[in-house]
């Protein structure tokens, strides 16, 4: 498959997920429960944006998409702008008041349907540029945020969301805590044990993908580098890889 077709396919995928999530029946189903709203719909929306952003990042140098990307990225030194904006968006939508409004007011929900995918997109564009130390900070902050919200929802004695029942709220809190634990393990896994074994096998069995994986490595895409390289590559090198990304985008 040509690179353009590849990117087109990824973009179509992301947009399809977005459209399906926005379909009235799916929206009603996922927003009927706080748990599905917060732990399924929001991540899928952000994921669709991330997927589109990852495709955009791989656009052919010199193409209009790549030129637009480098224009956007010129405001995103070190990925800080994107990560900060995405953090605000995601935290705000996890507040009980915003969840309620999204459930009760279609106009507010429309804002959510635009802003959350954009947050995912911003993460996709910013993560590779983010210095390794700051990535660690972001990971910690994600874990802390999930724990804070999880504990808050679990321990609240009254209903915090008017549109959701107390039991639903408690279950959401509980799952947020589990998610925080899972995220912590996932984030700590690679530095400690190297790539997830099935991923490693898949990589070894697919040499045709090596060019792309090497490129992904340069991009600093998470989950791609061998642990030894991670150890040899502290902060400054990541910045260098980042420089290469920028150089390629500007071709």
């Amino acid at each position, binding site marked *: 498959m040509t690179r353009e077709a590849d990117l087109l396919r990824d973009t179509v995928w992301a947009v399809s997920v977005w459209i399906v999530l926005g379909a009235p029946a799916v929206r009603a189903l996922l927003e009927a429960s706080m748990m599905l709203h917060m732990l399924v719909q929001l991540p899928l929306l952000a994921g669709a944006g991330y997927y589109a952003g990852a495709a955009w990042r791989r656009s052919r140098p010199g193409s209009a998409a790549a030129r637009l990307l480098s224009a956007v990225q010129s405001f995103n*030194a070190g990925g800080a*702008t994107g990560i900060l*904006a995405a953090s*605000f968006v995601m935290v705000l939508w996890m*507040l*009980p008041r915003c969840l*309620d409004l999204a459930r009760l007011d279609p106009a507010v929900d429309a804002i959510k349907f635009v802003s959350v995918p954009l947050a995912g997109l911003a993460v996709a564009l910013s993560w590779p540029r983010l210095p390794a130390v700051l990535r660690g900070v972001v990971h910690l902050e994600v874990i802390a945020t999930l724990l804070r919200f999880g504990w808050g929802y679990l321990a609240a004695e009254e209903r915090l*969301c008017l549109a959701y029942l107390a039991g639903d709220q408690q279950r959401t809190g509980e799952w947020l805590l589990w998610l925080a634990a899972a995220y912590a393990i996932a984030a700590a896994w690679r530095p400690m044990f190297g790539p997830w074994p099935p991923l490693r096998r898949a990589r070894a069995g697919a040499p045709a993908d090596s060019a792309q994986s090497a490129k992904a490595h340069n991009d600093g895409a998470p989950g791609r580098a061998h642990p030894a390289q991670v150890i040899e590559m502290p902060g400054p090198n990541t910045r260098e890889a980042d420089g290469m990304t920028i150089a390629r985008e500007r071709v």
Partner: protein
Amino acid sequence: MAAALACAAGLVAAHAATDGFRAYTLESARRLQALRAAASLPDLALELADGGRARLSALPGRVLLVDFIYTRCETYCTALGSVYAQLQQRLGEAIAAGEVQLVSVTFDRERDGAAELRAYRARHGAQRPGWALGRPESPADVQRWLNAFGVVVIPDKLGGYAHNAAIHVVGPDRKLAAIVDVADLDGAEAAARAILARGKR
């Protein structure tokens, strides 16, 4: 530079979304809103349990204490019922003077007819004077009542409903002047008396 802007924009958005970091839930937001600037209410009508119909503007009493109920409710509506019975006693003299009226609005239009509503009042040992009960005139009207006061009703999956129960204090201008917690008898009484005192000056 752009990062600082993103941070500033994020803080502005967060400030706006939480009323200056003071209301993180919709319930606290609507209570804060009522205290800041009393919101006008549409002049909605009720079919009264004691017969007849009345619009909000035509209900007797300079101050109305409005709550939303359904009579089958066995949790906090029961609390609301007994709170109203107690308020009826505490505010007895203002009620006798026609200055305060307690109003219970059912949102379970299908099941709560006049008889059920009167039985609900009787169950709490309360008398008729000063406590009007009623139901909106149509299902769409129920929604209008709930929207006007910012009440959200959801099925509780046990055949009943969950809702943000509270006492809504409505002034002589028929604006929503305060929203007081169900358990806060003193607060409800104080809010009613404050409005009455303001009128006398």
